[in-house]
């Protein structure tokens, strides 16, 4: 963050610095170069908003700065969207789990409506994780994981970690690869569709 404009009133300087400290706090998860670029652009906009003072009348510097920053909007109104946009783009392009976690965390910070959307997506990822864990666990506990036909005739998917089930194992050795493929496909679909969130406001 640069020092900002040269303001004679210390209260105006404080208001400016407080605003851009908050902007910086929201941007902290971004790479240094991107962070500096965005901060510089927002500061440049704020400088444009500081209307030239009329030399013939006394100027309330603090009011001028506060009015300019108010027009720009509270940082929490738009900076998290900037961060989330970038994180979602990275996650949906790289498919890296760490990028996905960062993208979901930054998106949830955008507000209550976003928390609800992220919660639904997290449930999707937990399901994917359960399928992946089931696919691996099946190798060690064949009677605990699989598609089983019960004596009554119904078919159910069981993924049990501390007990086993009864019934006819329908897929046998195919269970593990099928669950792993389903988990992989689910992960790819969920992560690829994160790009749709980028268009939402």
């Amino acid at each position, binding site marked *: 963050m640069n020092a900002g404009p040269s303001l004679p009133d210390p209260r105006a300087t404080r208001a400016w610095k407080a605003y851009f400290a908050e902007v910086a706090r929201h941007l902290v998860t971004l790479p240094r170069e991107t962070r500096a670029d965005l901060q510089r652009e927002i500061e440049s906009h704020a400088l444009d908003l500081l209307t030239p003072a009329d030399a013939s009348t006394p100027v309330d510097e603090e009011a001028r700065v506060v009015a300019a920053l108010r027009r720009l909007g*509270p940082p929490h109104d738009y900076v998290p969207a900037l961060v989330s946009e970038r994180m979602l783009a990275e996650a949906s392009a790289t498919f890296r789990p760490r990028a996905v976690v960062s993208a979901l965390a930054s998106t949830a910070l955008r507000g209550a409506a976003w928390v609800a959307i992220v919660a639904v997506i997290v449930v999707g990822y937990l399901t994917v994780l359960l399928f992946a864990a089931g696919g691996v666990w099946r190798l060690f506990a064949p009677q605990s994981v699989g598609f089983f036909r019960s004596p009554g005739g119904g078919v159910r998917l069981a993924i049990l970690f501390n007990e086993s089930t009864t019934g006819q194992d329908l897929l046998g050795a195919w269970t593990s690869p099928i669950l792993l493929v389903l988990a992989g496909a689910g992960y790819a679909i969920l992560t690829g569709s994160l790009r749709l969130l980028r*268009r939402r*406001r």
Partner: protein
Amino acid sequence: VPPREPPDSHSSAITENWESQLRKGLLDFLLLLLVRDTHRYGYEMISILRSEVGLDISEGTIYPILARLLRAELVVSTWVERDGGGAPRKYYKLTAEGRRVLKQMQASWIRLGFDVQRLLLHR
């Protein structure tokens, strides 16, 4: 000409909200239009949107949209020093891909306007 109905604060609020959402939904299109023929910076764009389109939003909200347009390679940006010194400004301009997308958006907009007009006149 139908008689003018007295103003109703409830219906006015609904209409205002609808109109505001409609304008916000057009932001991508409007920003691309603004940089179609000339380089512009954020403050300049929002000033035009305020005065020409009556868009009343927190000015910072255009930056997530500009970031998305940049990442989609519909626009490119460059920092330019201000005349007389001061902090430089980031200017945006349309790319060839942006121009193609804008043409499609313009066609959609014209089609939509035509369809709505047809409904208004012949429903």
